[in-house]
C-alpha cells in the first residue's frame, strides 16, 4: 500500500514539474504513455525490450554462475584466494566503460563482446559476495556431513546451498540492477537494437519523450522481476528463520 502511494506521489510530482517546463525537456506523463502505446503498436517496443532482456539474462547468468564458482573456491581455498585476489581487485576498480570499449575493440561490435563485457563488469561483485558466504560456512555442519558420509549431492543441496542462499540472493539483487544499467550502455555504444540503442537514437534527436517511453517500460519489467522472482526466492529460502519484528 505504502508503495502505491509513493508511486502516485512521484507521478504527481512529475505532472506538476512538466507544467512548468517545456514539453521538449520534460513531457507530461500522459504524453509519454501515448508514446509508449504508439511504440508498442508498431511492435518496436516489444522487440527492443526483448533484445535487451535477453542480453540481461545472458550476462546475468554468466556472471552469477562463474562468480559463484570462483567466489566459493576462493572462500574455501586460501592459496587460490591469495593468487586470484589481486585480479578481483583490479576488475572491481576497472571502470565499466573501459571494459566495454576494450571488448568492442578486441572482439568487434558483436553480441559476444557486448554480453561478455557486461558479465565481466558484474563478475567481481559476485565473487566478493560469494567468497564471504563461503568463508561463513559452518564448520560444525561440515563435520556432521562428513561423519554421516553424506554424498556430495546431498551435502550441496542440504548443507552448503542453504547456507549460501542469503549471499546468493544478495548477489542477485545487486547484480540485476547493475547488469541492466550496463547492458543499456553496451547497446548505446555498439548494438543495432535494444532499449539502449533506442535511447541513443532519442538522444541524437533530443527526443525526451521517446527516451522516457523506452526507459519506463523497462524499469517496470525489472521491477516486476525483482518483486515477483527475486523476493519470492528470498522468502522461500529463508522461511526456516524465526521471524524477527
Amino acid at each position, binding site marked *: 500500500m505504502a508503495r502505491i502511494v509513493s508511486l502516485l506521489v512521484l507521478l504527481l510530482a512529475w505532472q506538476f514539474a512538466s507544467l512548468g517546463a517545456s514539453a521538449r525537456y520534460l513531457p507530461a506523463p500522459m504524453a509519454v504513455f501515448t508514446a509508449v502505446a504508439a511504440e508498442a503498436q508498431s511492435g518496436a517496443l516489444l522487440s527492443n525490450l526483448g533484445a535487451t532482456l535477453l542480453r540481461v539474462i545472458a550476462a546475468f547468468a554468466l556472471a552469477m554462475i562463474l562468480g559463484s564458482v570462483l567466489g566459493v573456491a576462493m572462500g574455501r581455498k586460501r592459496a587460490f584466494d591469495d593468487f586470484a585476489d589481486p585480479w578481483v581487485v583490479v576488475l572491481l576498480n576497472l571502470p565499466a566503460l573501459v571494459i566495454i570499449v576494450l571488448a568492442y575493440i578486441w572482439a568487434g561490435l558483436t553480441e559476444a563482446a557486448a554480453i561478455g563485457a557486461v558479465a565481466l563488469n558484474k563478475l567481481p561483485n559476485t565473487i566478493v559476495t560469494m567468497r564471504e558466504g563461503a568463508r561463513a560456512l559452518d564448520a560444525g*555442519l561440515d563435520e556432521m556431513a562428513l561423519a*554421516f558420509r553424506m554424498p556430495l549431492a546431498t551435502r550441496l543441496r542440504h548443507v552448503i546451498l*542453504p547456507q549460501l542462499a542469503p549471499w546468493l540472493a544478495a548477489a542477485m539483487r545487486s547484480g540485476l540492477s547493475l547488469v541492466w544499467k550496463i547492458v543499456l550502455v553496451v547497446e548505446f555504444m555498439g548494438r543495432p537494437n535494444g532499449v539502449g540503442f533506442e535511447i541513443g537514437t532519442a538522444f541524437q534527436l533530443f527526443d525526451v519523450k521517446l527516451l522516457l517511453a523506452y526507459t519506463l517500460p523497462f524499469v517496470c519489467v525489472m521491477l516486476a522481476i525483482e518483486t515477483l522472482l527475486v523476493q519470492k526466492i528470498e522468502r522461500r529460502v529463508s522461511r*526456516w528463520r524465526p521471524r524477527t519484528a
Partner: protein
Amino acid sequence: MNDASPAGGPARLEIAIDDKCFRAVGGGAQTVIAGLSLTLGAGEVGAIVGPSGCGKTTLLRIIAGLDRDFRGRVALPAHGKLGMVFQEPRLLPWRSVEDNVRIAAPDADSADIGALFVTLGLSAHRTHFPGELSLGLARRVAIARALAFEPDLLLLDEPFVSLDATLALRLREEIAELVESRGVTTLIVTHDLDEAIYLADRIFLLAARPTHVVEALHVETPRTKMTESEAARLRTAARKVQGALAQ
C-alpha cells in the same frame, strides 16, 4: 587391561593411540593423548569418564575420523558406519526435524523413524524447524538421526550436558532403552560417573592431560538390571582410582 572381551574379530572397536599433539598458535606442541588403548565388544556400551578438558572430545573426533593428525590405530566395528551425536546438536536449521533425520539416513524406513520419534518423544515435532526446539529436544533429534542411520558404532559426546537434572535423567533412560533394544555398539563421553554407571557395560576412567585409560571397570549388571550394591561398588572403585590420580 583386565577385561576379556567375549566377542572377538572385526566386530570389536579397538583403539590404540600412541600420541596426539596440538600445535599451539605461539609455536610448540602440546600432547593431549599419550598411550591410550581401549577395546569394546560388539553390542557393548562403553563410557569414557574423565575430567573436563582432558581430551575426551578429541578422542571421539579421532574415532569418528574427523581428526586424522595422530599416531596410532583405530579399528572400527563391522563396516565402520558411524552415528555421531555431537555436543551441540548440529542440525540443519533450514530443514524440518523429520527431514534432518531422513537426509542423514536416506535408507531408513518410515516405521523405524516413527518408532524412534515415539521413544524420544519427538512425534509432535516432526514438522518443526530446529530453531523452534529447546536444547533437550534438539539433542533428541540428533540422537534419532544417529540411530536412524543404523550405525555400527554410536558415538555420543556429553549427551546430557547443559540439560536440567530431570530432563537429563529422562534422556538417560531413553538412551539406555534404545541401546539395549537395538544392540548397537556405543561409546559415550561424559564427565559424570553416575551417567556412566547407569548406561555402560564398560567404564573407562581417563587421566588428565596427556590422557590415557587408567582403569577399565566392568559393569556386572548393566542398565535396567543395575542394582544399588553394584552401583555402590563401581562408585567406590572409580573414586579410589580418581583419588589416586588427584594426588
